[in-house]
């Protein structure tokens, strides 16, 4: 049988060798132990002996070529044998196949052992540029984590560490001061921004100013007076656990573009709409002395502050709409209202109203029912406050809302139940998805 002679491994770290000189030429007889070639490695030129006897039938490597260890370099046949081209090629192919497989095998094994070799590329690539840390804010990993958990913007926190590093106690200080101010939620108001203070100078006392009331103001005045005098209001206040809702909102907002982000009010709106379905008396109007009209639609009115007063934009059939659509509609209508482009369709037909002064850091307040509705929900700010959990003091996210209801149409217990159901929706906000 013809056999292949391969490039031998002549040293423990030899990867390739150069065939310097053929000692046995094609056609020569070879005895076991005869030198057949000279091979040069990194370290020396070595004479290579044949481990078999036979006839040197074919050189597969030319003098002067460098080849990796185990490459075929010659074909040795038995005396008298004359292998054909095909046979020689087959031998070479076979050998060619083998070393490859071995390398793959090695690679596979290395991969399983290197199981956890790969460093997280993301973490490494976010590495700080030379001078300033990423984002420009120096902060400890703990401080960053706390900031994220509490929705605090690091740029707003003063760092007391070296080189202005924001550390744990800085975040704590910041959160404390925010709690004092009552503003844990950042302003993303459906309403007007706060007016800057006007300048005044000492020493000058201005004259009285008589201002003409706008038509809107006059209309509001009339209606509110009417409502306050004629509807027997009663009021219920409840504290809602808003942790889950805030978390869900945060998560959902990560999926939404800037222009579509959900506000707290959108959640309250949807929740109210669903709760009203179960308490139709609160979604009703007084028809006459003896009849109550329970409305089929649930149209929620949202109070929007505009120049010169306030307007109520209406989200029709709010209980049927997904919260994303509610948000979109309300946003659009509120913008239109502020720009004076509101359509009459948008401001008519509400069956229940919500007024939210949370963005003004109001804890709670009572609103006047919008006639001909029978109730209105006044919503305060979402705050992190001390709460008692399992007998221990903890920090909880809470919001107060006060329902004003018309006693001709409903009464305390019913209204209270409504508030309870509303709480269910707000406190387990996944229900709002169904």
């Amino acid at each position, binding site marked *: 049988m013809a056999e292949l002679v391969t490039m031998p491994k002549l040293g*423990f770290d030899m990867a390739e060798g150069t065939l310097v000189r053929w000692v046995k030429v094609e056609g020569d007889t070879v005895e076991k132990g005869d030198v057949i070639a000279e091979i040069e490695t990194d370290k020396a030129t070595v004479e290579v002996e044949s481990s078999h006897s036979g006839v040197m039938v074919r050189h597969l490597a030319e003098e002067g070529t460098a080849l990796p260890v*185990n490459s075929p370099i010659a074909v040795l046949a038995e005396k008298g044998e004359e292998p054909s081209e095909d046979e020689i090629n087959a031998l070479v192919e076979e050998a060619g196949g083998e070393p490859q497989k071995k390398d793959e095998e090695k690679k596979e094994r290395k991969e399983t052992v290197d199981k956890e070799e790969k460093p997280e590329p993301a973490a490494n690539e976010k590495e700080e540029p030379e001078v300033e840390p990423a984002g420009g804010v120096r902060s400890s990993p703990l401080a960053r984590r706390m900031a994220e958990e509490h929705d605090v913007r690091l740029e707003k926190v003063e760092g007391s560490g070296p080189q202005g590093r924001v550390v744990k106690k800085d975040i704590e200080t910041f959160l404390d001061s925010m709690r004092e101010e009552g503003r844990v939620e950042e302003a993303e108001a459906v309403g007007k921004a706060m007016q800057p203070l006007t300048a005044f100078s000492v020493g000058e006392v201005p004259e009285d100013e008589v201002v003409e009331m706008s038509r809107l103001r006059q209309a509001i005045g009339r209606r509110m007076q009417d409502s306050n005098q004629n509807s027997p209001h009663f009021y219920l206040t409840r504290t809602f656990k808003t942790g889950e809702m805030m978390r869900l909102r945060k998560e959902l907002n990560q999926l939404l573009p800037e222009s579509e982000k959900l506000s707290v009010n959108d959640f309250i709106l949807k929740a109210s709409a669903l709760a009203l379905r179960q308490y139709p008396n609160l979604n009703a109007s007084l028809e006459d002395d003896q009849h109550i009209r329970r409305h089929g639609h649930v149209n929620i009115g949202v109070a929007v502050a505009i120049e010169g007063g306030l307007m109520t934009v209406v989200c029709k059939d709010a209980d049927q709409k997904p919260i994303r659509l509610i948000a979109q509609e309300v946003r659009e209508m509120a913008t239109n209202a502020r720009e004076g482009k509101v359509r009459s369709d948008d401001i008519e037909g509400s069956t229940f109203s919500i007024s939210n002064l949370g963005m003004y850091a109001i804890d709670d307040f009572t609103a006047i029912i919008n006639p001909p509705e029978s109730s209105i929900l006044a919503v305060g700010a979402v705050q992190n406050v001390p709460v008692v959990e399992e007998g221990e003091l903890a920090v909880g996210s809470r919001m107060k809302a006060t329902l004003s209801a018309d006693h001709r149409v409903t009464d305390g217990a019913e209204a209270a139940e409504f508030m309870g159901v509303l709480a269910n929706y707000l406190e387990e906000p996944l229900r709002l998805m169904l």
Partner: protein
Amino acid sequence: MEKKDYLELYQEMVIIRLVEERSAELYQQGKIGGFLHLYIGQEAVCCGITSVRQPQDRIITAYRDHGWALSAGIDPKNVMAELLGKQDGCSKGKGGSMHMADTEKNFWGGHAIVGAHIPIAAGMALGDVYQGNDDAVTICMFGEGATNIGFFHEGLNLSKVWHLPVLWVCENNIYGMGTTMERASAVSEIRQKAEGYGMPNDRIEGMDVMKIREEVSRVLEKVRKDGGPHLLEVMTYRYRGHSMGDPERYRDKEEVKKWEEVDPIGILRKHILHEEVATEAELDEQDQEAERIVDEAVEFAESSPNPANEALFENIYVEPTPIEYRGYAMEHESEGR
């Protein structure tokens, strides 16, 4: 010695020769990695000494240990498997060529750091003395190159001061890697160094296994009786380079050829025939059987599986100890088996 003992001795030497030759081939094929130090030409020393040692005598040597592993009684299958790094190797594939051992055969390795095993040998003898194993001798081999390192001095000195039963055997094959004795050692005969410790010493020829048996028996019994150390310098020669890849620039071919004329296997063969203990045909039969045994060993080794990945973490400690895996969480317990 009976006929069968001669034939066994002969076959043992042939097996060693064949194992070494096959290892060289496997190394060139890339199947044996790292360093490979061949014992070819020195077979008389290991076979001579192990054939006269008693079971309680401990054998410890340096890295040219295949001959010692085989003659101490390790199956060629397990020696071959170890060379290929397989799990059926005598060291479970974790040691390789230089770290073969089998404590049950009282063979304590296979050591790679030159001379480091010498104080260890003294310690083993100390252990025997301490525990009252009065007729045990520790037989410690090292090359002539190792007699220049500090460990040699500390170990031999301690063995003399503490009167430890160690037979120090210097396998003098003239070349420490590529440096001759004359260039490395202050004295021209290694046994002279023992004089410096007031230690009895001898120098003998190492190519004739029968002569070695005779001399070593004598010396062993002396050590066994007297209890103190003895240095035996054995003049031998390795036909191949220091290890695979040695270009052998330090000696010429004629010298190698000259020593090949005193091939220890040839010498024993001649002796057996001369004494008419066995016939050519019987010796040829031993050759063939040796060939068969080595073929089987290679086959066994090649088909033996690689150690499992988990073996990487085994036998680091005896006590179950959490092992760091790449510096992350503790995932692996060392099994200590």
